[in-house]
């Protein structure tokens, strides 16, 4: 008897998972969302059954042949209250439950590993901090919180991983974030779910979840040389950021050492947390993000730097613990002859294509006080 029910059970599972009604649960949040989803399916089924049963039974009991004279009934406040309060109560339960899950999905933990994803017509570019680049795929280690920082280079796209139950719009002009923790190794669908033009349905790929060891191996094999931060360091010099942000007491721009994640007081009196979005905005719209005590003399880099470049700069600043490398770069660029760019990891002479406003001479530049933190 046991064997037979085992066989039947296995058959059912095989049938159910082959003709899946829901995607695999491959992230930590997936079962939580599924629980809410099934609760809602259950409530809907019950609600539908109640309505259909009532309609059917009333139709049979009170069909004309059986019940030729209708009884005029005004209504019933009691019933109205019942079917107002019960649905409202159920909906409110769903609201609270859903809000909790929503907050969880869109509030990355502090220790999440950050991967940048740039969406453009019609591909996804993922950039790992170590400099590994992927197109239309994303390798992630399982068992670790991973945060994705998304941005679009052109139109709205939407990064969707059904197996993880996460999805987030990639918008031009600002970062959006989402996080997940993958729980099982395997390959899962990646879709773009916001209509973005001709090849919207081709903007798909694979999310490859690996064990931590496999992930390390993959990282080692696919590194293309420079990590994001190293690339950022190079840009930091090329774009002459280090001319003002050199960490010296008299610098025209605030020191960027350890600035990531700190709370800044802005020149307009407000405060802001220096997260990725803030740093990006500070590079592209600096006059609205001036730290208190400094003048709004930083030139904008809008139009001179791609989203990839911004990402590299942001990564560099994130990893900046001291201004040592910045100083190094400054000194090295002073020493090098005009035509040579000796690779010390970052230094290359500011070229003629550097931004026209690369040497800001604000009219109100004064010696600065202590480095802001």
């Amino acid at each position, binding site marked *: 008897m046991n064997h037979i029910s085992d066989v039947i059970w296995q058959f059912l599972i095989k049938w159910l998972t082959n003709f*899946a*009604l*829901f995607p695999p649960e491959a992230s930590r949040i997936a079962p939580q969302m599924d629980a*809410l*989803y099934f609760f*809602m399916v259950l409530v*809907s089924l019950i*609600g*539908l059954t109640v*309505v259909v049963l009532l*309609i059917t039974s*009333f*139709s049979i009991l*009170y*069909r*004309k042949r059986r019940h*030729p*004279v*209708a*009884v*005029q*009934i*005004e*209504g019933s406040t009691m*019933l*109205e209250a019942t*079917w*107002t309060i019960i*649905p*409202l109560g159920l*909906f*409110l339960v769903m*609201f609270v*439950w*859903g*809000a*909790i*899950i*929503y907050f969880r999905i869109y*509030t990355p933990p502090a220790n999440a590993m950050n991967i940048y994803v740039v969406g453009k017509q019609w591909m996804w570019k993922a950039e790992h901090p170590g400099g590994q680049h992927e197109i239309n795929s994303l390798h992630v280690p399982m068992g670790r919180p991973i945060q994705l920082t998304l941005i679009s280079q052109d*139109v709205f796209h*939407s990064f*969707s991983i*059904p*197996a993880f139950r*996460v*999805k987030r*719009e990639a*918008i031009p*002009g*600002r970062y*959006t974030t989402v996080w997940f923790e993958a729980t099982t190794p395997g390959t899962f*669908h990646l*879709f773009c*779910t916001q*209509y973005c*033009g*001709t090849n*919207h*349905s081709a903007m798909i790929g694979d999310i490859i979840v690996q064990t931590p060891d496999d992930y390390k191996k993959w990282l080692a094999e696919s590194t293309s040389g420079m990590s994001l931060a190293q690339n950022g360091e190079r840009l930091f010099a090329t774009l002459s950021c280090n001319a003002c942000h050199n960490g010296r007491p008299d610098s025209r721009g605030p020191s960027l050492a350890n600035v990531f994640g700190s709370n800044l007081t802005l020149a307009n009196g407000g405060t802001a947390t220096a997260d990725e979005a803030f740093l990006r905005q500070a590079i592209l719209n600096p006059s609205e993000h001036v730290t208190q005590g400094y003048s709004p003399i930083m030139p904008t880099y809008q139009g001179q730097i791609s989203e990839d470049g911004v990402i590299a700069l942001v990564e560099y600043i994130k990893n900046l613990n001291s201004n040592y490398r910045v100083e190094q770069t400054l000194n090295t660029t002073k020493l090098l002859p005009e035509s040579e760019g000796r690779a010390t990891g970052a230094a290359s002479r500011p070229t003629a294509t550097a931004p026209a406003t690369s040497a800001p001479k604000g009219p109100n530049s004064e010696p600065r006080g202590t480095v802001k933190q």
Partner: protein
Amino acid sequence: MSTTIVSLPDQATARVPKTNFLTKENGLLSWLLTGDHKRIAILYLISITFFFFIGGALAGLIRLELLTPQSDLMATDTYNKVFTMHGVVMIFLFLVPSVPATLGNFLIPIMIGAKDLALPKINLLSWYLYVVGGILVLYTMITGGVDTGWTFTTPLSTHYLNTNVLSTGIAVFIAGFSSIFTGLNFIVTIHKMRAPGMTWFRLPLFVWSHYAASILMVLGTPVLAIAIVLVALERTTGIGVFDPSKGGDPLLFQHLFWFYSHPAVYIMILPGMGVISEVVSTFARKRVFGYTAVAFSSVAIAVFGFFVWEHHMFIMGVSTYSTLVFSLLTMLVAVPSAIKIFNWTFTLYKGSITFETPMLYAFGFMGLFTIGGLTGVFLGTTGTDIHLTETYFIVAHFHFVMVGGMLMAFLAGIHFWWPKITGRMYPEKISQLAALVTFIGFNFTFFPQFILGTLGMPRRYAAYPAEFQILNVFSTAGATILGVGYVLPLLYLAWSLKYGEVAGDNPWQATGLEWQIQSPPLTENFLEIPVVDREAYDYEWLERQKEKEVTTSVG
């Protein structure tokens, strides 16, 4: 004892009344320059039917393409145009005007005891604006189509497409004004032209629903208009209100667009709900259970409907706290719809129920709208919305409420008031068959899409992973059946114009004012403006009337 309430005059001697609004004047100009709300309703009926079948053909193309996982039936660009045009045509040229512009136009003055709407010339203007909008959409289709999606998302629509965005935008703008003027007309009429004794709470619920929908039309559509103007300006000039590189914000467009487009869905469904109230009451022979609750629910849906638009933007990087507010309000707006479903269900309790075609469609509405509405709660809940949004779950949800709900209500209404409009009955058996075919076809088409959405299949995809194929094939098979279900009424209703049985004034023995005048009505509706001294759905009054007729005619 018969199982139908239909009561027709003796067919051997009955004739459609010689003098009625259809025969009053002849000639094309008398139709094209008419001020008669009933003729305008018929003009609308013809035009929206035309656009419905165009939209339907486009739907057929979509489903054909989706039979196979590859994008092989047509170029991907073409597919993108097909689903965009399907959405634009179905929403702006069919669903928004369907019940209000045809049945609402025809019936509201009669139901309140007036001779016409308050502003007949504006009514005619509405129709012409609709036609111009429709012609522009046709022009767009002929000259290469548009592929923005009906939602015109910026910056795609402003900077990244070379198709006919402008002409489509103008078409929608003009059609929008058609809608605004219709709503304006209804509000003024209902406020100012009710017959003596017709208090607000004696109005048929059909009128209440249209009043609520009109508020939405009047207050919401102008915001769509300005959103389209800004898109058009941004496309043609260099203004950058939605362009991040100039400091603009594409999310502003989303807010402006959805501020209308969410109330728009209530514009679409509320009139349909009004039809259901009338139909269920008539075929259960009782007043609607909880009249006041249903009336207030209509207005509540309209009011709350203005405050939930951000639920279309939950994953777009809006502030998490704002999503709390909008999700909560979405839960609140779901409740009045539930109240209505239960009230209609309990209208059946201790009624005397018959199952003519309008009632079959009404039953279909109640079941399918319940499913559609409940799945809306899945989407209004932020946590599940993340997984389900932008997938086929959304497509299934809105087709359940719009097609399973609204379109069924429209068909219920067309069949219910067909005898009043034309003076002739439609053929009952084949129409019941068509209703059944529609119901079956609909479920086959759209229920698999819920599963597809949960599995993660994105919407607006011309090609999809092979594992989704079998559900797509089911869906297309259902669509074929559904198509048959929609072509049948076109055929037999046309047939009935010449060969249908003569209906008489009140074939359904219903209580509304429209059933107390001849079928088809006179141009001025009433010889004498009635003085109303009874509640809506007063079947006891109807009994007394019948007794009076019997006693007076026997003598």
